[in-house]
């Protein structure tokens, strides 16, 4: 059976003008991964690594000057890159739900929570206005918001951050999508609220058989939620494998560095920080983008970026450490 979502060689570029010179920034560079039905893939990386642009590319929300310049995105056996706006709208919200990081900006302040949750049902012709209103109350109950009938009539500002995120999840799953894309769904929340939202996502996943693409910078969240994990750096996927394997035996120096830099092992000692900073996407080195910060750098790293090599059937890495020289 084909995977639910199969992204191959996805490349998304932004046309930029810097100091009067036109150029192109490649935010996503030949990224390939898949998500099986009911599976959760964690997409991990730091700001500017292209993880959010990847998600926006999948649902066709990349705005000019950005555009997808190469690759395919097969979802439920259709290539989403070939769809026009109308066709895309039938997929977005209906078959793929989306939860954004900032629950305040993702909700429209002038409409009630209930209206916004019911909206996609109406837009996709799955319910009348009146039926959508009743369904919204059911969904609020499903995401465990107390007094759902009253809350459906509330406006976003009347809800706490955690409640707003619950309401957004309710909206995202309203049409029973097969895939939920959650972009840093708990980053803006307190740690106890984060734990509640992660619990809720787990419950929704089990109840509705959802597949999830979970975008996060937090390896702790990945460990708790994801079956598999893909690590991005400077627009490229550098490592991919089962969460247990990648977190216990990371193969790419960047993944190793991220894990080692986390506080936890020996209080009061210096942390194993990764030196340097994330490179400017407009001025990437010709070889591996991580090479300037890498402790295992070899001369060939600067010449050409390594292609992915398989450490096992399910564990892939892009690093010369795992490619024999010559």
């Amino acid at each position: 059976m084909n995977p639910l979502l199969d992204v191959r060689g996805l490349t998304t570029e932004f046309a930029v003008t810097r100091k009067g010179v036109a150029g192109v920034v490649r935010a996503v560079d030949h990224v390939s991964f898949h998500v099986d039905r009911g599976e959760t893939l964690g997409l991990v990386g730091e700001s500017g690594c292209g993880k959010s642009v990847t998600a926006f590319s999948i649902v066709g929300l990349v705005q000019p000057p950005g555009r997808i310049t190469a690759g395919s995105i097969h979802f439920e056996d259709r290539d989403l890159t070939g769809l026009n706006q109308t066709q895309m709208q039938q997929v977005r919200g209906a078959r793929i739900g989306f939860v954004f990081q900032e629950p305040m900006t993702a909700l429209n302040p002038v409409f009630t929570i209930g209206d916004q949750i019911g909206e996609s049902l109406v837009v996709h012709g799955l319910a009348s206005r009146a039926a959508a209103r009743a369904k919204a109350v059911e969904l609020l109950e499903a995401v465990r918001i107390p007094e759902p009938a009253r809350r459906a009539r509330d406006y976003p500002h009347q809800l706490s951050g955690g409640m707003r995120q619950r309401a957004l999840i309710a909206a995202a799953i309203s049409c029973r999508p097969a895939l939920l894309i959650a972009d840093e769904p708990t980053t803006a929340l307190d740690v106890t609220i984060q734990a509640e939202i992660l619990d809720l996502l787990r419950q929704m996943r089990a109840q509705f058989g959802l597949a999830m693409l979970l975008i996060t910078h937090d390896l702790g969240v990945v460990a708790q939620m994801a079956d598999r994990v893909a690590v991005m750096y400077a627009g490229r996927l550098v490592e991919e494998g089962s969460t247990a394997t990648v977190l216990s035996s990371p193969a790419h120096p960047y993944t190793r560095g991220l894990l080692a830099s986390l506080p936890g092992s020996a209080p009061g000692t210096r942390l194993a920080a990764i030196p340097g900073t994330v490179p400017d996407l407009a001025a990437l080195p010709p070889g591996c983008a991580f090479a300037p910060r890498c402790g295992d750098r070899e001369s060939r790293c600067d010449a050409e970026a390594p292609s992915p090599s398989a450490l096992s059937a399910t564990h892939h890495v892009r690093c010369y450490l795992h490619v024999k020289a010559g």
Partner: protein
Amino acid sequence: MMPLVEVRDLVKTFSRRAMPFSRPTVVRAVDGVSFVVSEGETFGLVGESGSGKTTTGRCMLRLIEPTSGRFVFGDKDVFALNAADLRAARRDMQMVFQDPYASLNPRMRAGAIVEEGLVIHGIGTRQERRDRVRELFTLVGLDHGQLERYPHEFSGGQRQRIGLARALALRPSLLVADEPVSALDVSIQAQIINLFMDLQQALALTLVFIAHDLRLVRHLCTRVAVMYRGRIVETGRTEDVFREPAHPYTRALLSAVPTPIAGAATARVVFDAAASNLDAPLRTVAPGHDAAI
């Protein structure tokens, strides 16, 4: 060790009105907070949003005026100082802010931002100040070639280094750092935390570290106070508090932190505020370890 910082019964209330002419309601953002910090110690103030940790830090430096309480800093009674004496006292206590994007004046060059405090306090000649700024740039790991650059030309981590250089310019003995790394990427966070540790050693700084990241606090702080709704609910040596949390809220907070180990057992404790006595005073549960239970 002498306590350098002694905060007693700090209270800060804000009044707000639901509607323009309605009766104001009083919010006790900080509600009777007391703690001491020894010279050279790193003291962590942890809690979630609305716990009062940031307000506590800002009151200490009188960036906002406290409603009542006392803050003895060395031999000074900070809350009793007049404006001139407060200005002089501020040389010795400085703050590092959370958002390195909002806390640096975008129209000033990095060197001038770091120098500003020296100018305001009339310290040194122009040349001496310039030399001091260069020294500070080296201290925080910035390049002298970056002195003339504007804040937007720096990354988040570098901006936090500028913020730190500015705070250290006047050679303070106390640094209050409010979430100094929470806006930074993971790989950069570790660099800045290392810098804090190095500087604290080299300059014998006393550090009040305000944060919500428990892993970070555990790593950096020798003692810690956990705040909830304006009060300290538990305080003690970091290892004691993390190993044997006595307050149900501390337990809930610790259990909510996701560990980066796949399949790690997560028996989450949920804190039920309604079922807890939130007015319970702090009492000693073990030597040097107090909890409000």
